[in-house]
């Protein structure tokens, strides 16, 4: 048992480690990864199916509040709470017009609580 360890020792000294140094290098992410949501309001028909199928009730249908948004968008649109979402992808599967999709972004940690809620309108109080 004793001497058999020596060739293995040399092999391990000369080979690369199994890990990568994360923020400086990373491995490529495959397609189909379930990350942050991307929503296109032009395609949405306000059917509300995404809010009904979500297992955690993370999607809520809201109306517009500022005056210019109220004239353009008159029905109800989904507001997503990323703190409750489990990233299962059922809302992407059920949407009949492909308005809601999941992208590859997973850098979602933040120090600012307001970024955990995603509003559907581009210019709104409290939204990006």
């Amino acid at each position: 048992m004793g001497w058999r360890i020596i060739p293995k020792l040399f092999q391990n000294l000369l080979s690369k480690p199994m890990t990568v140094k994360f923020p400086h290098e990373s491995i490529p992410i495959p397609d189909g990864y379930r990350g942050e949501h991307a929503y296109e309001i032009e395609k949405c028909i306000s059917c509300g199916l995404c809010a009904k199928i979500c297992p955690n009730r993370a999607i809520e249908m809201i109306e517009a509040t500022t005056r210019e948004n109220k004239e353009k968008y008159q029905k109800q649109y989904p507001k997503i709470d990323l703190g409750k979402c489990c990233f299962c992808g059922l809302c992407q599967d059920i949407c009949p017009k492909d308005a809601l999709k999941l992208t590859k972004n997973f850098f979602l940690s933040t120090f600012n609580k307001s970024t955990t809620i995603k509003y559907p309108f581009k210019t709104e109080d409290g939204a990006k």
Partner: protein
Amino acid sequence: MKSDLKNEEKLLKELVSNYNVKGRIQRERRIWINTDKEKLISICKFVKEKGFDHLSAISVTDWLKEGEYEITYHLWSYKRKILLTIKIRVSRKNPSAPSVSAIWDRNAQIHEREMHEMFGVEFKGNDDLAPLFLENWQNSPPFRKDFDWREYVKKECYNKDNEREIVYHE
């Protein structure tokens, strides 16, 4: 590829002729029988000698409209490869049933302990019915259909002033 159901039919005939139970064969390897509380221990002893030595689970279903609990015993036999389920019905007020821990030992004792805690069923003959999962629980047994768990959770865990929890209060 359908196999014949000879073994299942033979077993069902023996049980019907000896104990007068009502049963059916659902598919191959599955037999379901209904019986009364009084005949339970004698059927269990008979069936254990026939080779059903593995108790897979004991479960309770709460039929609120009919006012009854249905207790099911799922037994598997390694030799015959058949699963036999025995179902009995007891009333919902002061439910009690005889314990099968004299026949299947510690295996049955622990399943009955969990059912006592979650549904409130008294098993006569089981001497270790201490609480298993919950500590200092004072309300009614939690898995009954008339325990309103939504009201309990809203009162104890959620905060009405938090704007992100408003959706749970609807």
